[in-house]
Structure formats: structure tokens, C-alpha cells
């Protein structure tokens, strides 16, 4: 019971890591994007458009279940960064930006990593859960096998639940 209660409440470490993830995103949204907009407004616009799946995921996810949004955001960022870098290298002008936005491959390059992010988020937890259950089962079988061996070797009194054993006690005095 105590273990379950302990596990149902997030630990201090989890809470800290969760705060740091949120801070990163806020830093990205509030500081990085305006900075990027000041540096290259059209590049920032294309990046913002490319990050739309991450924003949607962030908005639609519950505050306690932001792992999906983070996964999508990370992958979405991975899709957007090469495009933005390429745009900056190309001068970051409005014409280049509009050409980029008109190219479906650019959209595919920006949005497909977000899809991969969703894919990762949807497939990894069940696999992890399955592996966890299998590990529990293996451990339980090992323990049960050991108990069975003890019972075979020492009889039912090896189990403390059976009460005190009828044990022989050390010699007091042997007949001389």
C-alpha cells in the first residue's frame, strides 16, 4: 500500500525534471522565437509554421501528460531546424520564405518528424510495459522455484507460516 501510494505521487526529481522541460519549451517559445524574429523575421515565420504540430500537441495535452507533446516538439524541432538553417543560408528573405512554404517537400520535411514523434510516443510505453511485466514474472517464478526447493529439502517447517519447527536442540550432556 505504501509502495503504491509512493509510486502514485511524483517524486521531487520527477517534478524538477518536469519543470525543466516546461522551462525549456517556454524559453523556446518566449525568448528564442522573438529573438529569431528580430534576427530573421521570415525564417522565424517558417519555423513557427513548422512547429505548429508541437504547439497543437502542447495545447491539447493535459498538464500531467506533457510527455507526448515534448516528444512531438523535440521531433518537430528536429524537422524545422534544417529547414530554418537552409532558409537562413539562403538569405531569409520573403521570396525565399514564400518559395519554401510553397514546396510540399519542405512541409513534409518539417511535419514528418512530428509524426515520428507521435509514433515514438504511442509505441514505446506499451513495449516498456510489456518488458516490465515479463521481468516481474520471471523474478516471481525464480522465487517460487527457490521456495519449492526449500520445502522439498527441509519440509513444511521451512515455511515460517507453518509455526515453530520441531527442532532438535544441541546436546546437553552425552552419556559418558
Amino acid at each position, binding site marked *: *500500500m505504501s*509502495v*503504491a501510494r509512493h*509510486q*502514485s505521487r511524483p517524486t521531487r526529481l520527477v517534478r524538477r525534471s518536469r519543470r525543466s522541460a516546461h522551462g525549456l519549451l517556454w524559453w523556446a517559445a518566449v525568448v528564442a522565437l522573438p529573438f529569431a524574429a528580430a534576427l530573421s523575421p521570415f525564417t522565424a515565420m517558417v519555423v513557427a509554421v513548422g512547429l505548429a504540430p508541437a504547439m497543437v500537441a502542447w495545447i491539447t495535452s493535459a498538464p500531467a*501528460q506533457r*510527455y*507526448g507533446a*515534448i*516528444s*512531438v516538439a*523535440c*521531433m518537430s*524541432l*528536429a*524537422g524545422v*531546424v*534544417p529547414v530554418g*538553417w537552409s532558409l537562413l543560408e539562403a538569405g531569409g528573405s520573403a521570396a525565399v520564405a514564400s518559395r519554401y512554404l510553397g514546396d510540399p517537400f519542405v512541409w513534409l520535411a518539417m511535419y514528418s518528424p512530428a509524426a*515520428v*514523434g507521435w509514433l*515514438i*510516443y504511442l509505441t*514505446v*510505453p*506499451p*513495449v*516498456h*510495459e510489456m518488458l*516490465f*511485466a515479463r521481468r*516481474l514474472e520471471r*523474478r*516471481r517464478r525464480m*522465487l*517460487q522455484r*527457490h*521456495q519449492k526447493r*526449500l*520445502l522439498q*529439502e*527441509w*519440509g513444511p*517447517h*521451512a*515455511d*515460517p*507460516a507453518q509455526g515453530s*519447527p*520441531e*527442532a*532438535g*536442540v*544441541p*546436546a*546437553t*550432556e*552425552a*552419556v*559418558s
Partner: protein
Amino acid sequence: MDGAIGSEAIDGIGSGGWSEAEAEVLLAGRYRLLPGRRIPSLDSPRALAYEAVDVEAPARALFCLISPVEALPRLPLARSLSATPVDGLLNPCAAGYCRWPSLGGAAAAFLFPRPKGSRLRPGAAAGLSTAELSRRVLKPLARVLATLEARGVTHRAIRADNLFWADAAESEIVLGECVSAAAGADQPALYEPLDRMTATQLGRGEGAPADDLYALGVTLIDILYGLRSGQAYPPHLVFRKLEHGTLTSLLPRVSPAPELAGLLRGLLSDEVRWRWTPRHLSRWIAGERVDPPSPSGQATAQRAIFVDKARFRSARSLAHGLSREPELAVKLLRDGTVEQWLRVSLGDARLASLVGREVQEAQKRPGARSSARNILLQRCCRLLDPAGPVRFGGISIMPDGVGTALAALVLQGHETSEFEALLRSLAANDLLGPVPEQDLASTDRFSAAVSFLNAGGPAGGVHRALYELNPDLPCMSPALTEPMSDVRELLEALDRGAFDLPDSGPLADRHVTAFVASRLGLHPLQLAGVAQNGNGQASDAQNELRLLGHAQAYYGPPALRALARAAAVRLSPIIRSIHNRADRKRLAAAIAACVEQGDLSSMIAHVDDVRVWERDRVGLQRARREFAMCSRELERLRDAERSGLSQAQREGQKVATAVSLSLALAIVCSVLAIS
């Protein structure tokens, strides 16, 4: 209790239901005892006489006495007399135990040469002159008594009806047998000295040569003047003797011849230290002048004290009277009646003070009420009659008769609790305290017996005390066909009987275990072994086996297969109590091998192997710890299973995030690097 110890055990013997057609009994391999041919004229008080034939010399005139074991016959003395006969005594030719059909069990058989003359008739010596009496009666008897004294044994059955003429010419006397019952048990009270006469018959003790000389003195009076009225001795004579002394009581009206008077005074002195010895007697017979002791009367009061309705005038008789009415006696002691009578009527202020002090000290004595009462009574009786028997509750025995008295009680199946209390008091020196010349060796003997009594178990208890107090007593187990003195033979007999033993219950009865332990000199505490049952204590069966194993190792025989098989069955629970399956199998196999060899000592050695039990104890503890650890881990896993799946899902989400992050970083870094 009186009746139990002193009862006439001859009741069980009789020829009823016995016919000549029945098989005869063979003694010592050469004497045929003929149960169908009684010789009533040669009976002893507790033994019946039968005809007997020596197979190797059929012409010898023999007879045998058959004595029930409850009479506590003196087998060792009989064997000694058989090996080294005493001239002038009816010596046994052979002695041993056998099964006697009319008794339905074991009996002691003594084979004697048939006396050529007849038994002395009452008043047979009335017409004899002093010289003739000396030559024909006293001389042979003095010879016998001197020889017995030199050997350190007593006859304790000298009485008028136990004398025979040595031949048809009645030239000389032969003293009758003294082995068919315990010492003094067959003697009428009149024949016993004052100190022993009030003890119960089987508790009179071995006594001393002085007691034989006293009996000789009474015998002389009996054959010279006659003491009987009809077939019995008058009961009032016993009380009279107690109150007024022997000579005054037995010769109230007769004045013996002057030359005999000195002899009788010497033999019948109530003071043991003044009584004649065989040497005095021999000198008197030789015609030398021997001064007889002065008449030793005892103080008697003018005014008698009443105990119930009986009147007593002397301290000794009062002691006897008080012991017969314990409840009333304690009342008289506590209310000062006895003290006042001693001081005023008897005029013995010192004795009165001693009794008064005993009564006061009794108030402070701890212990059970009945026990304190018995101790008070005995201590006061001891003051009144210092040489008298130990009087405790309903028991009245001499200190050297404790063994035979206990044997009588146990063999007759009577309750022994009061006797055990007596033994404990004797060991604690509560009873003999006031006597200055107390026998320290006896106290040690009683202490040893009590330590066995208190120990309990197969090697302890009242049976062990019985065999410790009677070192010559053979094993009297009713399960045996006859009492046995040899441990090896006893074990062989047990082995033969083990085929019929049930699968549970003791291997041997208390008589056997106590006898064997006594012969081995083992204290019950020495039987504590390693193998113990669930209560943490070795069972009686294990202790029995341990005892028998030691007996086999010491006395043999090498193989006791039936007994070993029965023992193995009884060891099954203890083998099962070994928890380790492999050790259990090993031990069972070792015990099976011991059964095969019939080796009890190896069997118990295997069971008592301390390494096996220690290994089992430590191993089981470790196994229990491991089992408990596994149980706790399993419980934890169950909890983890219940709450852990959602946790695993959350962890999976974290993993997914980490994977995404890592992948994203790898992509970004790669792109930047390419660029």
C-alpha cells in the same frame, strides 16, 4: 502400611490346583523339585516345603523351600552358605529363582539336606540339665553364631520352632534356615529386641549379631519354660516386654536356675552395649566365669498416660503408642500433655524439655502439614525411644530395614508416596537428628536414593530407589519369567520378549530400566542426550534405548535384533523430527543397519550424533530465513504488479520522450555538421 509391609506373603502359596502329573521344576540343572509332594513339617513361616531329588545322587534326602519373591528371600546369603557351609546350620545346597506353578509366577527355591532329626517340640529342653543344655543346644548354636559373626552376617531367624535335632538320637541341635525371607521377617515380635520389635516385619533390618544372641535368649526361655499359649504367643507379652523390659516380662513367675540366670541376663539385656557376644557365650559354655550385666530396667511412671484408650507408663511404650495414633499423638504433643506427663509423672525433666523444644521447633518447620506432623511425631518418638524404629505416618521401620520395606511395598504393588516422604525426610536428616550417634553412611545412602527418587524418568523414580537401597535385589520385573541378577541374561530375555512388543510404549518396564541403571551406576541426568522431541525433551523411550544401549555395550550380548527392531520403531518420530530430507534418509539407513546387526549402542550413538542435529538446526534456520525473504519479495512483486503497470506506462512515456529527444538531437547535430 503395617499390613502391607508385614503381611504374610505365604498366602499365595498353596498346593491347590497342582497335581503330580504336572511337570517338575529343575534347579541348578541337577535338582528336581517336586511341586506335588509337600512336606508340611518342614515349612517355614513364609515358605512351603516340598520334596526334591538330586539327579546325580538320588539317594540323598533333600527337601526344598519355595518362597514367594514378595517375602524378599536372602538369595545372596543362601549362595554364600551353599558355597561355604556353616557347621551346625541348615545350609542350602543350592538356591535360585524358578517359576513355581502354584504361585503362577516366580519364586525363590532353596534346596536343603533333610534334617535327620525332628523339629524341636515346645518345652523340649525342659527336662535337660544345664550341662546337657550346654552340650546339646548351646554349644552348636554358639558355634554357628561365632562363625556367622566372623563372616559379618546375621541369622535373624533363631527361634524355638526353627531348631532341629541333628539326628534321631537327639544328640545335638541344628539351627534352621535363615534365607527364605528377609532378615527378621519370620520372627515373632517376642523374639526381637526392644528396638526392633515394633518395626514392621519386613522393615526390621539385617540387624547385628547382638540381635541373634537376643533371639537365642528368648529361644532358651521358650524351649525351657514355654512362652506360647496354644499355638501363638500371648499378645500382652509383647506390650509387657516393651513397658517393663525383657527379663521381667518373659520370666515373671519362673526363677531360672542360678547358673542359667546369668546366661539369660547376658543374652537378654535390653541395652545392646551390655548384651553378650558369641565370645561371652563360648566362654560361658566352656565353664569360665562371665559376669552378666546388671539388670537394666527402664523408668516407669506411677500414673499412666492415655493415648486413646491405651495406658502407657514408660517412655518407650509411649513412643510406640503415639506412633499408632498419629493424629491424637500430635494433639497430645502440641497441647503439652506428653511434656507434662514426662516432667511430672515420669520425673524426667530433661526429656520433657527436649520434647517441648521439638514441639516448638515444629511450628517453624516449613513443608506440607502432614509431612511436618509426621516429622514432629518421629522426632519426639526418637527422643522417647532413641534406639527404636523410624516411625513416620503409618510406617514403622528400622533404618537398616528401609530397603526391604520399600521392596515389600513395591513388589506387593502398594502406594509408596508416604514411604517416599519418609525417605526424603531421612535424607534431609529430619528424622534421625536428635540421635547423636546417627549413621552418616546411612544418611548418604538415603540421600543418593532420594536423588534418584526425585530424578524420575526410566532411570529414576521409586524403582531406582528400590534397587539402590537393595543392591543384592535381582530385577523383579513381572515381565520376566524369573528374577534376574545378570544384566546380560536380562537383555537376552528382553530380546526374546521384544517380538511380542507393540509398536508403541516402553521397551522395558520400570523394574528393568531401574535395575540396569543401578547396575551401570548411571544417574538419570546422564541419560540426557541430543535427540529430543518437539517439547525439547528426550522421551522416556529414547532414554530407555540410551540406557539399554549402554548396558549392551558394557555387558553384551553383541546382537539384540528383536529389541533393536522394536527400538527402531520407537525412534521413528525422532528420525522424522530431522528436517533435512537427505540427513533423515542417511540416519534412517544407519539405524536400519544397526537393526540388522542388533546393535543398540550404535543405534543410539547415531541418534545422539550432535553434528547431525546441529547441522539440521542451523540449516533449518537458514532455510526459514530464505523462505521468508522469498515470501517478502513475492509480496513486493505482487504490489509492484498491481501499481507498477501504470508506473511502467509513465516510465514508458519518459522513455519515449528521451528517445525523441535523443533522435532530435542526433538529427539536428547531423544537419548542422553536414551544413
